[in-house]
């Protein structure tokens, strides 16, 4: 093949990186050719982000070699990477909303003339970049905050390209875009590769790789499994490479009690977010809602808890049609939610553990509904600390001083005070160590056994298989297939990532 004889633009050989005792990547290889789109795929934690950080100079590899156009190079910092011509566009646009597009692109490296910024020359250069990306020239002086998310992303790409980039890293660029916006992105990528730029493209949406990538490198458990021309693989084959051998996960088999439906979504729709979602969770049952970032899973959960409101379809709680107006209303209806982003949405960092457990339930814990009954607050907190095996010296410990796993258990404890009819858990074990993960899973199972209907929203595939009695896959804003607890990871991944042909 002709491509084999050509010297690759960038080649990483036998690269490894440790963070303390954790091997983030070991013995990974990556070869990127000029003018090609090279896809990098793998499950969360497979080492993709460490890999691109090494290429972008944000991390330095412990061992291994990096070659640029055939000669060995050292990328010790982001400055080194930029000097070589490696530019990175991270998932969230890192832009200044109040500055113009031209200012954003030249920030920190302004062109100057007699001490002042040379706007005219900067703008000429920016207009060239905008034309390359297919954006109107007038955008050069538009304020970035006035542009749509997709346009802002294109500005980020323009910013990355302004330094004469030869390799462009796009980290999950499609996760925040709509289908039409993805088309624009692909156009831009094709235009760039036609002009000789190499693109490293990271995505969870496997189906789109077939439309944009030339080659794909699959990572699993910190290793690169292999690199293949995209035409040689199917979505299912890629998914299989990503999850590897089927683990014989010793999952304790659970008898699901036959109870009435406690949470029932029928054709639930929120315009622009998700449509026609059907989910039923029975009393005592654990159902997992599995979908990739941007598939609409988190919005579905937000609707059940009244954070957002559905625009169509029906939502029934304990058999009665309801439409939660706000979280307080949802709680009165018997729905509890454990938020995914617990640092922001879930806890009061400076406050004591007891406060964090009783917040939101103070009426229940108050004398005459007015004064907080400190003794009861303490008793309830102590009881839950024991039941949840939270490791803490005392119930007055501030929650911010606790580990992620323990903090998560405390936030879970808050929802247990009122024993909700329906409990929605969003990414319950994200960023939690393995031991705490086990305990949280055990707690969730216990809760279900006490009769709570549990809906787990997760993007952690092994977790969904471990704890759920049924798994509902969400793709492109709607529920697609349903799987039992014996399903294979590869089938679930293929269903969620698209193209289950």
């Amino acid at each position, binding site marked *: 093949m002709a491509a084999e004889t050509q010297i690759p633009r960038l080649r990483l050989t036998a690269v490894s990186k440790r963070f303390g005792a954790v091997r983030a990547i070991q013995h990974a290889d990556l070869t990127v050719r000029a003018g090609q789109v090279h896809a990098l795929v793998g499950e969360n934690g497979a080492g993709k982000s460490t890999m691109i950080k090494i290429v972008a100079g944000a991390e330095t590899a412990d061992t291994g070699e990096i070659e640029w156009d055939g000669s060995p190079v050292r990328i010790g910092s*982001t400055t080194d990477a930029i000097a070589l011509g490696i530019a990175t566009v991270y998932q969230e646009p*890192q*832009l*200044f*909303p*109040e*500055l*113009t597009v031209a*200012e954003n692109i030249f*920030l*920190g*490296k*302004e062109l*100057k003339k007699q*001490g*002042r*910024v040379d*706007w*005219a020359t900067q*703008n*000429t250069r920016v*207009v060239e970049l905008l034309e390359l990306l297919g954006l109107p*020239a*007038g955008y*050069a*002086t538009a*304020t970035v*905050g*006035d542009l*749509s*998310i997709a346009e802002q992303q294109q500005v980020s790409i323009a910013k990355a390209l302004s330094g004469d980039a030869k390799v462009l890293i796009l980290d999950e660029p499609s996760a925040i875009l709509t289908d039409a916006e993805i088309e624009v992105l692909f156009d831009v990528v094709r235009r760039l590769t036609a*002009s000789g730029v190499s693109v490293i493209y990271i995505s969870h949406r496997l189906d789109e790789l077939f439309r944009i990538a030339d080659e794909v490198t699959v990572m699993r458990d910190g290793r690169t499994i292999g690199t293949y021309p995209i035409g040689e693989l199917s979505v299912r084959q890629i998914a299989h490479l990503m999850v590897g051998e089927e683990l014989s996960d010793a999952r304790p088999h659970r008898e699901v009690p036959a109870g009435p439906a406690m949470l029932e979504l029928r054709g639930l729709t929120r315009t622009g977010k998700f449509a026609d979602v059907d989910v039923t969770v029975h009393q005592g049952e654990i159902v997992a809602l599995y979908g990739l970032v941007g598939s609409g899973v988190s919005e579905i959960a937000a609707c059940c808890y009244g954070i957002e409101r559905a625009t169509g379809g029906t939502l029934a709680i304990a058999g009665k049609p309801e439409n939660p107006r706000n979280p307080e209303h949802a709680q009165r209806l018997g729905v509890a939610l454990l938020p995914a982003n617990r640092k922001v949405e879930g806890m009061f960092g400076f406050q004591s553990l007891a406060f964090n457990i009783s917040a939101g339930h103070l009426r229940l814990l108050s004398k005459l509904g007015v004064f907080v009954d400190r003794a009861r607050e303490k008793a309830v907190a102590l009881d839950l600390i024991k039941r949840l095996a939270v490791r803490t010296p005392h119930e007055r410990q501030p929650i911010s001083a606790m580990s992620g796993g323990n903090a998560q258990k405390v936030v879970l404890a808050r929802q247990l005070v009122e024993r909700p009819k329906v409990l929605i858990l969003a990414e319950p074990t994200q960023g939690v160590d393995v031991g705490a993960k086990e305990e949280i899973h055990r707690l969730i199972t216990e809760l279900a056994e006490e009769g709570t209907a549990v809906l787990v929203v997760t993007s952690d595939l092994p977790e969904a298989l471990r704890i759920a009695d049924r798994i509902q896959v969400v793709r492109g804003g709607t529920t697609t297939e349903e799987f039992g607890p014996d399903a294979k990871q590869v089938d679930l991944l293929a269903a969620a990532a698209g193209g289950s042909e």
Partner: protein
Amino acid sequence: MTITATPPAKIKNLPSPVTGQEIVLIGVIAVLWAALAVSTPAFLTAGSLQPLLVATAPVALVGVGMTIVIITGGIDVSVGAAIMVCSVITAKTLVGSDVNLAVAVLISVLAGGALGLINGFLIAYGRVHAIIITFGTANLFMFLGLQIFGSGTVNGIPGTLGFFGRGEAGRTLGIPHAFLITALITAAVWWYLRHTAGGRHFFAIGGDAQAARLAGVRVQRRVLLAYLTTGVLVGLASCFVIAQGTSTLDQSVGSGKELAVIAAVVIGGTSIMGGRGSVLGTFLGALLVQTVASGVTQLGWRSQLSDLFVGIFIIVAVGADLLRARARRSR
């Protein structure tokens, strides 16, 4: 790809130099002046306008520094106390020795710069929120100022600073010097913020300090500079304050000025969240606040009404800012 001759660029190099809010402010001030001219014929005379412009100067001048501080996402609530420290030091120097105008201004500016440097260092390198730091230093400055005051008041201040005052010596061609100097400094800072890389970096820091750091902006140095500038301007403004008063300076000097300054900045359209703002807006905001105050006095209304109007202006300005941010986010 074919190479085409670059078409004559028809795009503007920069967005409009004047924001919508500034145009609205100019309109509101024009309407108020017209209304006051009709209702009190004495309003549009030199005898009424000159004091208005003199009184606007110190607030607008400190407001220029405060605007930079707020653009970076900070705030400085110690300026009132800092004015007190600078004016008591300068006034005592004037009483005690025979210094000329330039030396007096230099002393005041150095004192203000030192106080600004304290704020700047603590905020830029201490990584504690500006409101906490400056609230703390406000109390320290207050203590310091009262110590220097010693007993009660400073009496018998000579007219050395008359150049900035209300009298004939304080005007050229009928325009008060204090106002003229403030206008020139505002214009210079406006140009600096708009046309230099350093100036634009203040906006970047207020937008996202971390991203600015990654883009190569020296964030800490910029933040330090913002508070230092405010301190220096406080020093100069203190000279205006002494000049506008009588030969006596009492301990209430500067008291509450931080609120007047922040009000002018916010009414001028600078976002309290940082990242957006203009010293021209602040200048107009200060002029509007002073117009309301003197209008209320000249109409013989109760002076509390002036607080009411300023309060309404602040809420309208902040509300407009929030609505704008919300409209943007919902996109």
